[in-house]
């Protein structure tokens, strides 16, 4: 898998390259700002990009805009956006560019190398990965009358994992329960939220996010 990297912090960029190469990815281009990354990009030259949101010159959302730009050039080009903090509007803007191959994670998630690489693989395969913090932030905005409040802690946890793009098997492993229990939780969640259950991982995320954003 050929990847592009954009990260302005030299240490993190080097670390990221090291990590991805160690996991069998090929880093075909790495830049310390969004413009250089876009200049280096040619359709077909890479299979995906990992971008830091905040980069020079303005240190606001250069990485996000570059990600959207890439996806404008190549529809559904897989992008994994990393950020020091979670901003649900960024998530919404990413998702608005198409549901396939989008990821938005807090930077520190790279520490759990296995999970991070799994998330990256899901994005490259066209899946959707949202940081649990995004979901938490969206939840915290909801009023007390909200059906989301009626979720049990376990169901809440499962919804977070669903939002991260995990399938039922992975969720079952993550929280050490049986797969049938997970299916039951998900059934309850969607029932409480008034959504019809579906099998596909990222469609479930989108449903959840679309509902939470409304």
């Amino acid at each position, binding site marked *: 898998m050929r990847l592009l990297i954009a990260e302005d*912090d030299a*240490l*993190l960029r080097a*670390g*990221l390259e*090291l*990590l991805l190469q*160690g996991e069998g990815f090929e880093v075909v281009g790495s830049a310390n700002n969004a413009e250089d990354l876009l200049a280096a990009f040619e359709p077909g030259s890479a299979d995906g990009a990992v971008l830091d949101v*905040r980069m020079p010159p303005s*240190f606001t959302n250069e990485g996000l805009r570059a990600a959207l730009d890439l996806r404008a050039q190549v529809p559904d080009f897989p992008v994994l956006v990393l950020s*020091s903090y979670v901003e649900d509007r960024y998530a919404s803007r990413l998702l608005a560019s198409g549901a396939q191959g989008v990821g938005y994670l807090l*930077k*520190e998630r*790279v*520490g*759990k*190398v*296995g999970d*991070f690489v799994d998330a990256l693989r899901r994005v490259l395969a066209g899946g959707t990965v949202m940081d649990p913090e995004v979901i938490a932030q969206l939840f915290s905005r909801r009023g007390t009358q909200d059906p989301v409040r009626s979720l049990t802690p376990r169901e809440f946890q499962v919804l977070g994992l669903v939002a991260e793009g995990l399938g039922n098997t992975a969720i079952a492993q993550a929280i050490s329960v049986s797969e049938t229990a997970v299916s039951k939780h998900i059934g309850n969640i969607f029932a409480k939220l008034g959504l019809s259950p579906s099998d596909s991982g990222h469609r479930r995320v989108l449903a959840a996010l679309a509902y939470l954003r409304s």
Partner: protein
Amino acid sequence: MLPARPSLETRLSAVRFLLREMLAWPASLGVLVAGVVLLPFLPLGVGLYPVPRLLAVLNLLASRAQARACAYGSAVVPFDRRRLADRYTFGELAALVSAPETKRDVSWLLFHAAFALLAGCLAAGLPLAALLYVVAAPFWTLFPSDMPLELAFPVTGWPAAGATVLLGLVYGYAAWLLPPWLARRLSGGTLGILSPRRYDELSRRIQDLSTARASALTAHAAELRRIERELHDGAQNRLVGVVMMLGLAQRAAETDPAAAAPFISRAQDAATEALAGLREAVHDIYPPILDELGLGGAASALTSRSPIPCALDAHGLLRAPAAVESAAYFVLAEALTNAARHSNASRIEVVLRTEAIPHEDVLVVRVRDDGGGGAALPPSPGSGSGSESGTGSESGGGTGLAGIARRASAFGGKLILTSPPGGPTDLRVELPCAF
């Protein structure tokens, strides 16, 4: 009630003052005439060019008259005169023309054009006439009878001569009595007309305060952003680095425990850097030493760390609000760094003092060095041109003289810098202690 009898010295200084006013009179008349001539052209738009210049000249004349009157009356110049720009748009010009300052200047011009010559002539003419009458009248016999000595009237006999001498004595007495009174009237009138009314003064102060407040808010926002950046780029990114390196170490350890060691040591380095970044950020928010030792103590810690020998005088320093003390601390730190970097000085003198000026106390930070001078402020945004020498202005924006000026203006303070090429450099920052 009569004022205390003036001494000869004060009488002479009154005469000097009146003579100076007389010498300044032609300029007043000139401006008045120019103004009257220009008046009909004003609505035609031609006024755009000459009016600011005329007002600038008027401004100059008025400020000089004010300075003369203040010097005569040993009064303190009560306020800063406005500064005029070179160019104005039509709207600004209209505001300028209708400003209370302009009204005061024009009133003064009329007053001065009407009375300065008269007063000066009286002050100069009376003693001369007195002298002439008294000395010349007895010599009336030397003049031929068809062309007699003409003074106040033709002197053709001893009675007329006696009357002329008497008149001369009256003039002399007037020359003795009048100047102090005239000078008081003229200087008092000048100051009375030119000094802002209480209302104007207050509205000016409100304007100043609003400006200071706006700039404080801007500076505060910039400060918050700077701290956020510092935390993000320093501590936060370093900690992500720690987590990443530990993740790599963990991954490496799964296959070969020995391979994890370099990652762990890099994680440690990153953690150390994160701590350093945090320490710096915390210090930049509020130096802990300020709380502990106060500004005087904190300043002495700074000066003792200076590579150039540094004398500190912090007598006359009162406690100020924490924000002001912290600004003063950073100003001093920045100034000392600047001096160490650019001045090649062999000695630095630092004075910290609380001074009382009208309306408020100001905390004064003064840093003088005997170095090469030539420090200049980078042009501030908005003001057109300005000379920039590399000295003191680092590209960082928040550092050097620009940083000092920014901190000072954030608190409605002032930065006064004198640093001629060849030195010495004298930097004075005034920070109001209360808004």
